[in-house]
């Protein structure tokens, strides 16, 4: 599996993909964190879906990680696109046959690919964390937010927990992307359907069907990133997502192992 891992990284490390993604992640995180501080006194809210996160909340120990956790959804979409395209492009380029000739154990190939993309996702989360925390400190003065609590051990622990939760959330999005890529075998279709579902369909269903957000993978991933939210508790979100992913991974693993490679 280690050979698959390193060979996949030869694709992932190419500058246009790696640097491009890190720039995009930095920009997204910077935007979310900046809005959190710059719109702190806005009556239209300074966070997702018009939520107001007050100065008092930001001054708490966990306040330093709010911008970072709020970026999780967008980081997740980036991960979904990367995982889906890197998986589905093997079909569209016809390169899957080369890979399978050099690594005939299909599940090993799949696991190695996932592992390499997971470390890529880890890098995006680390970059996002650095950008968000740096900006939080930089903008705290302008937003008149006291930062004394941000340097305590409680804040550091909170940041670590948030980091783990955001990473889990991003990996959930990525795994959904990989499942879609394997099922649909086309990067554009996989990304379109994934993004449309997470951004549009889930929002419509959640808005029209009461409590449905407790069962929507995108909403649950967002809840995990925040350590649980009004929508669903952390443990509920983790359990349901685990169930979804287990079924999805099982289905695509069986398909990938048995399906003829004809293109």
């Amino acid at each position, binding site marked *: 599996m280690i*050979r*698959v891992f*390193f*060979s996949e990284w*030869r*694709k992932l490390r*190419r500058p*246009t*993909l790696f640097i491009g993604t890190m720039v995009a992640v930095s920009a997204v995180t910077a935007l979310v964190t900046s809005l959190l501080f710059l719109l702190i006194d806005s009556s239209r809210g300074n966070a997702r879906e018009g939520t107001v996160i007050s100065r008092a909340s930001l001054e708490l120990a966990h306040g330093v990680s709010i911008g970072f956790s709020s970026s999780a959804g967008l980081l997740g979409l980036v991960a979904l696109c990367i995982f889906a395209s890197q998986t589905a*492009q093997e079909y569209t*380029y*016809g*390169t899957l*046959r*080369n*890979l*399978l*000739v*050099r*690594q*005939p*154990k299909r599940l090993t190939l799949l696991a190695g690919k996932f592992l390499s993309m997971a470390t890529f996702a880890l890098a995006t989360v680390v970059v996002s964390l650095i950008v968000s925390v740096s900006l939080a400190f930089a903008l705290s003065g302008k937003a008149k937010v006291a930062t004394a609590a941000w340097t305590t051990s409680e804040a550091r622990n909170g940041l670590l927990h948030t980091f783990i939760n955001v990473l889990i959330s991003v990996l959930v999005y990525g795994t959904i992307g990989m499942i879609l890529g394997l099922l649909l075998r086309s990067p554009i279709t996989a990304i379109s359907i994934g993004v449309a579902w997470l951004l549009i369909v889930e929002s419509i269903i959640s808005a029209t069907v009461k409590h449905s957000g407790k069962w929507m993978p995108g909403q649950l991933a967002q809840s995990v990133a925040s350590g649980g939210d009004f929508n669903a508790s952390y443990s509920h979100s983790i359990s349901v997502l685990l169930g979804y992913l287990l079924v999805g991974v099982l289905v695509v693993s069986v398909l990938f192992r*048995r399906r*003829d*490679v*004809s293109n």
Partner: protein
Amino acid sequence: MIELAISVSDLSKKYGDRVAVSHATFNVPQGTVCGFVGPNGSGKTTTMRMLLGLISPTGGTGKILGEPISHPERYLHRVGAMIEGPAFYPALSGAENLRLLATLGGYSTDQVQGLLDRVGLGDRGGSKYKTYSLGMKQRLGIAAALLPSPQLLVLDEPTNGLDPAGIQEIRELIRSLADEGTTVFISSHLLSEIEMISDSLVMLRKGEVIFAGMTQDLLLQQQPILLAKSENPLDLPKLIEIAAAAGHAGSIIDETAHILGPREWAPVLNKLAFEAGIVLAQLAPVLPSLEETFFEMTGDQE
């Protein structure tokens, strides 16, 4: 006992009601070049994919380098392959594409430049794959197939897109690999190329093997032809009539009479023509080429 690189028995593949390959049985001895020919859609690529573990057969068995095709992980590290044209990542350079496959297969990446040199891409290895011409892509595909220093090389149409000089280079490369002991299983539409380089032949038609054996044996099984030209081309129809009356069928192609008959019958034909007042300018016995044999056996004018 001859060691076999490829041995398949009753190998079949069905897609629903459509039979892609039907009970294919053939052997390829180690260290030989075996041509794999057949019209489009005859099942060549499907067979090659089954040999490489990319497609599961619906029936039959096969062995590659002594290992069953149901366990491709046991033999693919000794096999190089290029199936249905080259396929690489457009945004990576040719050299990086090879390094990626070398890393995946556990082979040394130090050999990449040597392989690029060997296929004539030594000075273009750093260029992105998407900037390559069709011929260069084909060469890169062959270089990738050579990564494992293979005991068996499976090549599907390796000369597609190459110019005549490139075709000759690939022919020489394949011959040199065979001389080093590599078994080469190669499909191509260029039957003259196959005839020149292959020791043995497997011929498919509509998913069925219609010939498997030594190329020379196949050609010797064919009826020899007498090629006759007369001083006056208008005499040729009369010459065909004379041959037909003696029980030898013939036809006129490009102002030359093609008459089925053995070498020994040439003097008889010459005498019969002379008696009929026809002066032959040329009379030569020839064996049909692989291409002519292919058309006759497959009934396909590809």
